[in-house]
């Protein structure tokens, strides 16, 4: 890539092989067995009769332009850097520094551009071309020139390499910065300056054709002694043919320069193009469309259109806004001088839906003269890969356009243009019509516009665009006495930003901005969903956290970092809950059931009533008798239970000791019975029938243990109480 602000010129970039069909034969040697040679065929494709439009980057002068091009060499810029050297014009397959392309500039009336013809007829080579079947398209155009014209305007064979070079540019500062252009371009120059007819003051229409000179190099002119000056005249003037009646001619596509007749099927309906506002043109077009008419009648409708009106003022809708009232593209090149017929027609063709095909066809207007029919000398044909037409008049170059541009701050009225003195030979320019009254603009940059309120009243309001002629504070006047960088407070609806001016009108600038911003965001679903997601992520997470903080008394982790790096709050809370439950189960769950061993099995001998009554020391028979009369519950209530200790009574020491002893022995026996179950104590186990209030004494196992015997032996000297029930 060249440095910023530089470009590099190369003489040529040679391709390694030229275009064509090749056969590759590969043989293998040095192996002990036989190997068949391998034949591979491949085809190196390159344009030959038509240049694909994507290979043409630009052309100078611009197509269908009218301007002061008399001091510039026409050129065409091609995308692929090796294109002009991909074929050898002398025949043969070696790449040669002589290019096969030449740019030829013909004036209107000097040569003939054909219609679509099969490619075999597009060329008149002296010897057959290298591979006549290597054609990229089936039909192409050709340029038919007489020998005189060829000798005058075509470049010499030695000039061909001089007129073609390669340029390498830096594309950083341009609109192409975001594409992937590599900056290499091939340029083909013309050898003729498209000069203006100074003597008569008339503009001249030229056509630049990129021709293929394969096989015709010997026909090109030889160098001759030069002359220092030139005078404008056509190389050969065939323009009289334009008035000839050619209904029987072989070239059916003839455009009459004076409205003679129009091409069959080339120019469609006038009214179908976009943006035309003229009802008469639309009607003419619609009428022609309904009839599906052949060339003649259609031609008259179109010729009527062309003759009747000047360039249609077409509006360009940008981003849905209304048209700016800009004149047609063809009209923009000349403001004062009237646009020529040809330029207007081509510009009108550009608005047609079929413009891609139509515009190039229409550019050939004025060059479709039946020279081949009428010429006495030999006529040569050269295939034309690309062509465009332009007109040289005394107009503007980039330099003059930018020097004449009216510069000012937005809102400044245009400077009145000084009247230019007319050049000799040119008619006086018409005096411009009086300018209409301008828009209502005030010094603050506000513009007065019509406003229809929500209720339907039609009032005037002030509006100011974001483009203002002086620096404004960021708060827009909504905050009093604030610094210029103090920002605009947040508004939630457009109506909040409407201001009323002391003169009674409203200032709708900020309100309009708010509303269009809202509509632009709503118009794209991806933006709406991005906003929703943003809100949910940023706000939703915080709100959940605050809710949990209020409900729980657990410290929550902080919300730092992006969403995917934060801990999952749900899981965190759940784990915390489980931990809190685990720490104080009494508070969270309830009282805890103590760990308990399984109880001993109860041995109940006899009736349950009898066992319990005996254990409590109650007379069962008396109880039953009483129960029969007053009920079991009442009988139980009335029965007195023998107690060892009355409530409030101090335990007697002599009664306490045996009781304690009994209790101890009983517990001991029970433990031993569990630990050493084989040992049995003979005799009875002395246990206390003592009843501790509130607790039921559990009966012991029946088998006597050795320990029981021990205890029985030990307790002989003590008072023996009645042994407990078995």
């Amino acid at each position, binding site marked *: 890539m060249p440095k910023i602000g530089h470009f590099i010129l190369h003489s040529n970039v040679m391709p390694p092989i030229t275009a064509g069909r090749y056969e590759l034969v590969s043989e293998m040697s040095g192996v002990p067995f036989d190997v068949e040679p391998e034949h591979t065929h491949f085809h190196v494709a390159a344009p030959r009769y038509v240049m694909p439009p994507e290979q043409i980057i630009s052309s100078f002068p611009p197509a269908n332009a009218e301007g002061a091009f008399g001091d510039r060499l026409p050129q065409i810029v091609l995308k692929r850097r090796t294109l002009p050297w991909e074929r050898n014009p002398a025949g043969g397959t070696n790449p040669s520094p002589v290019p096969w392309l030449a740019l030829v500039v013909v004036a209107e009336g000097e040569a003939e551009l054909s219609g679509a013809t099969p490619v075999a007829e597009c060329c008149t080579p002296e010897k057959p071309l290298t591979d006549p079947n290597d054609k990229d398209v089936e039909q192409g155009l050709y340029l038919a020139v007489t020998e005189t014209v060829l000798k005058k305007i075509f470049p010499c064979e030695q000039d061909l390499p001089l007129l073609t070079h390669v340029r390498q540019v830096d594309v950083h500062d341009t609109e192409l910065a975001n594409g992937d252009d590599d900056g290499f371009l091939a340029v083909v120059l013309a050898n003729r300056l498209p*000069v203006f007819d100074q003597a008569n003051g008339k503009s001249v229409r030229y056509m630049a054709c990129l021709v293929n000179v394969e096989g015709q190099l010997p026909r090109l002119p030889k160098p001759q002694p030069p002359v220092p000056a030139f005078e404008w005249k056509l190389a050969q003037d065939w323009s009289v043919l334009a008035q000839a009646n050619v209904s029987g001619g072989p070239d059916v596509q003839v455009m009459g320069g004076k409205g003679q007749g129009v091409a069959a099927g080339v120019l469609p309906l006038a009214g179908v193009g976009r943006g035309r506002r003229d009802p008469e043109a639309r009607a003419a077009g619609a009428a022609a469309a309904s009839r599906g008419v052949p060339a003649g009648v259609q031609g008259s409708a179109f010729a009527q259109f062309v003759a009747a009106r000047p360039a249609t003022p077409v509006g360009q809708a940008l981003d849905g806004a209304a048209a700016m009232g800009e004149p047609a593209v063809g009209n923009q090149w000349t403001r004062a001088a009237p646009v020529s017929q040809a330029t207007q027609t081509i510009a009108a063709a550009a608005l047609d839906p079929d413009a891609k095909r139509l515009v190039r066809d229409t550019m050939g207007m004025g060059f479709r003269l039946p020279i081949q029919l009428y010429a006495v000398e030999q006529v040569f044909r050269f295939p034309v890969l690309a062509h465009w037409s332009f007109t040289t008049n005394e107009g503007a170059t980039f330099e003059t356009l930018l020097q004449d541009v009216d510069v000012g701050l937005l809102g400044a009225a245009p400077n009145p243009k000084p009247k230019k003195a007319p050049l000799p030979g040119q008619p006086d320019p018409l005096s411009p019509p009086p300018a209409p009254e301008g828009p209502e603009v005030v010094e603050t940059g506000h513009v007065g516009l019509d406003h229809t309120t929500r209720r339907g009243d039609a009032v005037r309001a002030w509006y100011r665009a974001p483009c203002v002629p002086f620096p404004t504070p960021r708060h827009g006047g909504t905050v009093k006495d604030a610094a210029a960088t103090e920002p605009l407070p947040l508004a939630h609806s457009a109506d909040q930003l409407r201001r009323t001016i002391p003169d009674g009108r409203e200032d709708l600038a900020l309100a309009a901005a708010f509303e269009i911003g809202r509509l632009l965001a709503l118009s794209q679903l991806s933006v709406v969903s991005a906003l929703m997601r943003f809100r949910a992520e940023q706000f939703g997470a915080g709100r959940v956290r605050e809710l949990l903080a209020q409900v729980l008394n657990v410290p929550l982790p902080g919300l730092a970092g992006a969403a995917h790096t934060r801990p999952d709050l749900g899981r965190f809370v759940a784990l915390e809950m489980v931990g809190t439950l685990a720490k104080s189960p009494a508070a969270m769950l309830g009282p805890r059931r103590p760990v308990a061993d399984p109880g001993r099995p109860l041995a109940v001998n006899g009736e349950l009533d009898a066992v319990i009554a005996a254990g409590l020391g109650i007379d069962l028979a008396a109880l039953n008798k009483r129960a029969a009369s007053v009920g079991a519950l009442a009988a139980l209530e009335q029965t007195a239970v023998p107690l060892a200790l009355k409530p409030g009574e101090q335990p007697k020491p002599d009664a306490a000791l045996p009781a304690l002893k009994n209790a101890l022995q009983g517990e001991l026996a029970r433990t031993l019975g569990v630990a050493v179950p084989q040992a049995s104590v003979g005799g009875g186990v002395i246990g206390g029938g003592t009843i501790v209030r509130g607790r039921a004494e559990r009966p012991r196992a029946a088998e006597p243990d050795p320990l029981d015997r021990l205890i029985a032996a030990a307790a002989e000297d003590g008072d023996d109480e009645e042994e407990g029930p078995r």
Partner: protein
Amino acid sequence: MKSFIGAQVALQATIKAAKLYADVATDDDPDDGLHVVPGELRRFLARLRLLHGVPFSYLVPDAELLPPESMRFFYIDRAWTDALVQGALSVGTVSTADRAQLEAVYPHIRTEVDEAERTIRRPPGQDRLEGAASTITGFLMRSRAVSGWPNLHVRAYAVDVVADDALTTAAESDPSRLKVLRMERLAPAVLLVLIDGVPAVVHVEEPRQGIQFGARLDANAPPAQRRARVRFRNKNTGNLIGAANAPLTDANSVEVPFRAGAPGVIDLATLRQRLAAKAPPVAPTLAPNEFALQMLRFPYRQVFGDPDNKEGTKFFGLDTFKPTVSLVKWQAAVKTNLGL
């Protein structure tokens, strides 16, 4: 059943959340860093700030404000672009809770969108620039130069360091250059350019792809004897020999030979010899790229802005006002006169 989270609890939680979590980051991009606003939303809002998608009638309410063949400079009203972004953010704020939250997070959104403005247009090979918001200026040009020469080069300089005809070598991130935030053709003949800062000079240059070759026709020659000359260049540097606007003489140009009988057709073989004689080439004959170099008509550059007042056109006579009395003396004189 009495719910544990009632309306009061929810409302308090919302209010607290809106205040406390306004700066929580939601976007962590390894290339971009940690931000509150997600990347695509930030870039959309930054594009809105640069007026992408805004209909043209909002920028130029009346067509007469931008007449044909005119160029209008302006400042961007940041209140207007802030209102635009606020409108975009108001989508989806329905309840008071939403609005309270937007109110709390809006300063962070604004700061981040300010920083993202400079990253929207980034030609390849340039550094990524970020910073706080500053003034944005720009211009609208409506001219045939825009439609006839697409891909114009526009460069804005904070300081006039480049001579008017010198080559540009500074990258856009150079401190003397101001970044072009947006350059777009809104219509075939209307160009909108937004510049980051207040420029001292603006260069508008012919597109380099449209470099032209040609000769200089003699404007004073009679119509029957038109002549032309080619100004030649130093083949090592590519600069013109002599001053840029010097008249054409034999010292700095050659006369163009034409083919006899053919109007305007250049006799290239003779021209080649004449150029080779004046500017001795490397090989005996002039190579095609050397020939092209000599025939170059360099892209024309128009410079807008005159910080050193070389052309002597200032708007107000006050600019040439020079004080001749010192302030102290003047104050004393005023006091005496007023009897203070």
